[in-house]
């Protein structure tokens, strides 16, 4: 059996795959494109922005049971609401929000056979709002709400949500470049200001965020929601 990781080509996803391989786990890695090949990794590709794509992913797994599922895909959706394109709103709600539920519904039987956990990566912006991030916050808050309500009534599959803080990935840095432009300051100045808001004074390394996801996926007992934010958001 293996652990499925979606968004495995991204900064956090790739770190999760690496962390799992180090722990001796087999990994089914999903993304839009095939990533780095490694012993113990089987790549599958597909678009998770709609229910049909999620069904295709489930179908591609055959009848295989899963030790756990870690949902690590996502997109940036930053921008002031007044000029935000409806396409970005829709894509954020589907990819950052609804796809988590589609995946849970498509894979829960495979997990219930093994007692495996369903882990999804939300964000600290799923716990506390951030300005010029409403389309992202809508989806990430929704995932936290859904998970808490579903966990309260469904006990066959543990659902666990990781809400990481600022993790040093291309996704985060790209979003921060946009924000620096919006603020009219240099990227370096913007990052310095950002760092000042994080009590530990630095960004999370991808492997640290990955380790938190792997803990949620493999621990016998773990919280439904874990905030790993360097103290920026307390939960």
């Amino acid at each position, binding site marked *: 059996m293996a652990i499925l990781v979606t968004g495995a080509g991204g900064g956090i996803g790739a770190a999760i795959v690496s962390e799992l391989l180090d722990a001796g786990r087999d990994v089914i890695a999903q993304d839009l494109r095939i990533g780095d090949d490694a012993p113990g990794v089987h790549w599958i590709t597909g678009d998770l922005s709609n229910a049909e794509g999620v069904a295709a992913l489930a179908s591609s797994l055959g009848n295989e049971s899963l030790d756990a599922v870690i949902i690590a895909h996502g997109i940036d959706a930053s921008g002031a609401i007044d000029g935000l394109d409806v396409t970005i709103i829709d894509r954020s709600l589907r990819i950052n929000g*609804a796809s988590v539920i589609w995946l849970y519904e498509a894979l829960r039987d495979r997990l219930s056979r093994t007692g495996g956990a369903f882990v999804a990566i939300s964000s600290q912006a799923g716990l506390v*709002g951030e300005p010029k991030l409403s389309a992202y916050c809508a989806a990430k808050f929704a995932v936290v709400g*859904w998970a808490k309500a579903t966990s309260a009534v469904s006990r066959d599959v543990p659902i666990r949500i990781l809400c990481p803080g600022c993790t040093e990935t291309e996704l985060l840095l790209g979003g921060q470049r946009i924000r620096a432009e919006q603020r009219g300051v240099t990227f370096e100045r913007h990052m310095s200001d950002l760092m000042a808001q994080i009590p530990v004074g630095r960004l999370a390394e991808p492997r640290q965020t990955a380790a938190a996801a792997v803990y949620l996926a493999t621990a016998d007992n773990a919280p439904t929601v874990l905030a790993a934010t360097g103290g920026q958001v307390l939960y």
Partner: protein
Amino acid sequence: MLQALLSTSDDAVVVLTADPGIADADQGLVAPLHEAMTRAQGISPEARTATFVVIAGASPGHESPFTAACVEGVRGIAQSLALEWAGRTRVNVVIAPTQAAAEPTCAWLTDQRAGFVTGSTFDLRVDAWRSL
């Protein structure tokens, strides 16, 4: 009724219904939150307050997963906008089982005495059900 009472150029109200009978993510999450976002885009920069009202039947902790997703998603939008529009428009969320139960709180939020309240959630469901 709520819209007519409170949706003025100064005070915008966005009413959404979290339907507990819905059991798919398209209708239970994407559709209501997309509507909330597009309605928020229509709020005038001159508005003093913007209140998102979510009509959700069950008490907190007893709601359907899609109701919870909708309620939390709207909270996410409102918190983000409260920061984005700070100093311009106060943004809050009212969750209630009926529009009638939400109206007094919505009216209070438009008052200057509530001038320091933004980014807050008023979940009225427990008290509203208790008083039925």
